[in-house]
């Protein structure tokens, strides 16, 4: 890739300038990672930094838009609920409040991922997104549990008259709003199209699989994520985990609104079948929870330092072994800091007489081009 090589040259120039500055004694290991450079390191690539900040800005705007919108809807519902003295509307408003809390958490993590790495957080703050997404998903679970509990409550206090029409109306309102949000959020997924590329077939398969695996819903957004620019699928992925959490919130809301609509319609027609409320809450809550499962699996994998699922570690190992000059490889670890940022470390036994710099460069190129792993540490023995 031409622009990769151009940036290698630029990075080496940078390195020569940085060295005298760095070798003054310093007490703590406070190397800001973007000024340190060893050949090609994605932490320090200038173009990657601006790409990332652009994505961050985009996801931040989307999340803030969501928050503002939901706050407005919440205000409307609170006013309406106080005026009509309806408990259902107030609980819906409380529900929206937890959604806003989830978005807010995502927004904070997007902001935090821009912070520079410190000596205590040597990998930067990108992992925070994963924890924030975990928190968001926990909130969704909490809301579902609360809804089930409320449904049980309504069943137990049987003397309540349930107004089916009101239920239906509120649910329909919520449904429309959530649908609008889904379409708005979902619209962004199609932006990162690049023209189809023929010589990345091998990992096109990986990325398509990963992308589908990562989305929480059966896709009608099955656009191909092949790319001419190698960082573009990474771009789409980095965008995803923050927005994915928000997306899941909205999806869960949507599904539950559908459930309440159905229950409201049934109760409106046949006012005696109150059990339908509980049943539909249970069913639709489980459906909503199931949509969060793929994301939970991803988060779990990242937090467990597991090999990312779109990388076949056997192929990687045999690929590295196949490079000229590599005799053997052991202690290979590949893991993700967050979705899209992969780190590799390994020990390579080199054949005697091979220049280690050259070998390093070759292995590094291989990992970057084929697997999009940018943070690589290789010990040559």
């Amino acid at each position, binding site marked *: 890739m031409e622009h990769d090589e151009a940036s290698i040259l630029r990075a080496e120039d940078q390195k020569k300038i940085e*060295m005298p500055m*760095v*070798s003054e004694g*310093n*007490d*703590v*290991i406070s*190397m800001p*990672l973007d000024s*340190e*450079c*060893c*050949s090609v390191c994605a932490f320090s690539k200038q173009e990657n930094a601006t790409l990332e900040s652009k994505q961050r800005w985009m996801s931040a705007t989307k999340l803030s838009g969501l928050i503002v919108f939901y706050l407005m809807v919440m205000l409307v519902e609170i006013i309406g609920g106080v005026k009509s003295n309806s408990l259902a509307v107030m609980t819906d408003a409380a529900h929206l409040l937890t959604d806003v809390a989830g978005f807010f958490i995502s927004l904070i993590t997007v902001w935090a991922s821009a912070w520079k790495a410190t*000596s*205590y*957080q*040597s*990998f930067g*703050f990108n*992992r*925070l997104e994963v*924890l924030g997404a975990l*928190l968001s998903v*926990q909130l969704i679970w*909490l809301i579902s*549990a609360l809804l089930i*509990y409320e449904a*049980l*409550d309504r069943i*137990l*206090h049987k003397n309540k008259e349930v107004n089916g029409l009101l239920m239906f109306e509120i649910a329909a309102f919520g449904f429309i709003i959530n649908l609008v949000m889904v379409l708005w959020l979902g619209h962004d997924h199609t932006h990162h199209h690049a023209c189809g590329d023929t010589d990345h077939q091998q990992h096109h398969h990986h990325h398509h699989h990963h992308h589908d695996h990562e989305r929480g819903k059966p896709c009608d957004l099955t656009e191909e994520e092949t790319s001419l620019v190698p960082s573009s699928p990474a771009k789409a992925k980095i965008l995803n985990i923050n927005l994915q959490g928000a997306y899941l919130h909205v999806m869960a809301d949507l599904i539950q609104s559908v459930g309440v609509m159905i229950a409201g319609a049934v109760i409106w027609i046949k006012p005696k079948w109150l059990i339908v409320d509980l049943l539909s809450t249970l069913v639709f809550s489980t459906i909503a929870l199931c949509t969060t499962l793929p994301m939970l*699996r991803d988060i*779990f994998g990242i*937090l*467990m*330092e*597991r*090999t990312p*699922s779109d990388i076949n*570690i*056997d192929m990687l190992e045999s690929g590295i072994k196949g490079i000229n000059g590599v005799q*053997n490889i*052991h*202690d290979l670890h*590949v*893991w993700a*800091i967050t979705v899209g940022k992969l780190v590799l*470390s*390994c*020990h390579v*036994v080199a054949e005697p007489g091979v*220049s*280690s*710099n050259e070998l*390093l460069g070759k292995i590094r190129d291989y990992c970057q081009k084929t697997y999009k792993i940018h943070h690589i*540490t*290789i*010990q*040559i*023995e």
Partner: protein
Amino acid sequence: MEKNKSFKYYSQEPDSPHPWNTDFGFANASDRRYAFSRQPSFHQPQRDPITPMTPNFSNDCMKPFLSRNVSSIDIPPGFYSYDQVKEGSFEAKGSAAEDKFSVLESVLRVFRVLRTGNRQMKRLLIMISLNVAYSTAELVIGLFTGRIGLVSDAFHLTFGCGLLTFSLFAMAASRRKPDHIYTYGYQRLEELSAFTNALFLLFMSFSLAVEALHAFIQDESEHKHYLIVSAVTNLLVNLIGVWFFRNYARIFFVYRKPEDMNFHSVCLHVLADSIRSAGLILASWFLSLGVNNAEVLCLGLVSGAVFMLVMPLFKATGGVLLQMAPPNIPSSALSKCWRQVTSHEDVIEVSQARFWELVPGHVVGSLSLQVKKEMDDRPILEYVHSLYHELGIHDLTVQSDHV
């Protein structure tokens, strides 16, 4: 993937019990520094940095006895030897199929391990079964008699049980050997379960605060009275749990072994539950005494207490999961090592020194060196490895760029 031990300098198998040469785990900072300066081998490099040092395993074996202090657990150090829970760990299956396959298998494996498990796991199992029995009884009674308070309590207990089951599962499953997909092994499961426990406790404290607010606004004080029986039973069950895990009943805990966090979180969980029950009982008693805002006060107190209890655990677990620098190793030690490496005659510069804790007690690091051209790597590598090995960092990957 062969585990080629050709350059496993100072290495043990990745799954053997870690040598407890981390004397830095003292709760007292001055002890920590003192312990560090007592390391005899620390002065060696100044003599002759080029001679490779021989691994001194005998030294390592002695360490566990030296590293005891009052906060250590009374479980013998060799106890957590890794079982022969061997699955076909090196089959290269497709990841999706392996996931489905491994869920069922892991459940079966967990049962097997539970039967042969250690003391703590059995205790946890007893506690979980007690809790499950109790919460189903409460749920059934609540549904039949129509008391919503019992049902909500039962829900809360069920959540707690689910979490404790996850902790148990983590204890059992984390003994598996590392395989292709989980190259670092499964020990992080314990941290995850500790984190989820801490999260749950935080949620609980928030919900108690909300409940206190609710009671303050609405002033409905009757519905606590008939919860006395359930609160007392709950308290008893949880106190049994605290007794089981009494070694971990501290707020500020120093984590030395991977399972420390898990056990600590379980202990805090039952402790918080018992505090909550005690608070409810206290509130009822005060109400019967006629104190008006007793409920608000007690709930608020309980919520505050649980929050304070959980925060250190939450921060520590979060730090491990966020890959922060290992708290056991003081940064002065790391920078000392840094300076020593830099002062080596062949090394121009050290960059990208990143250390993170996989689980408490197992630190992984990676380092990048700029070395003078045409120098032989091996002595430098051995030197660097030995330096960091004294700090307890065994998994180190050192990349040397020749300039």
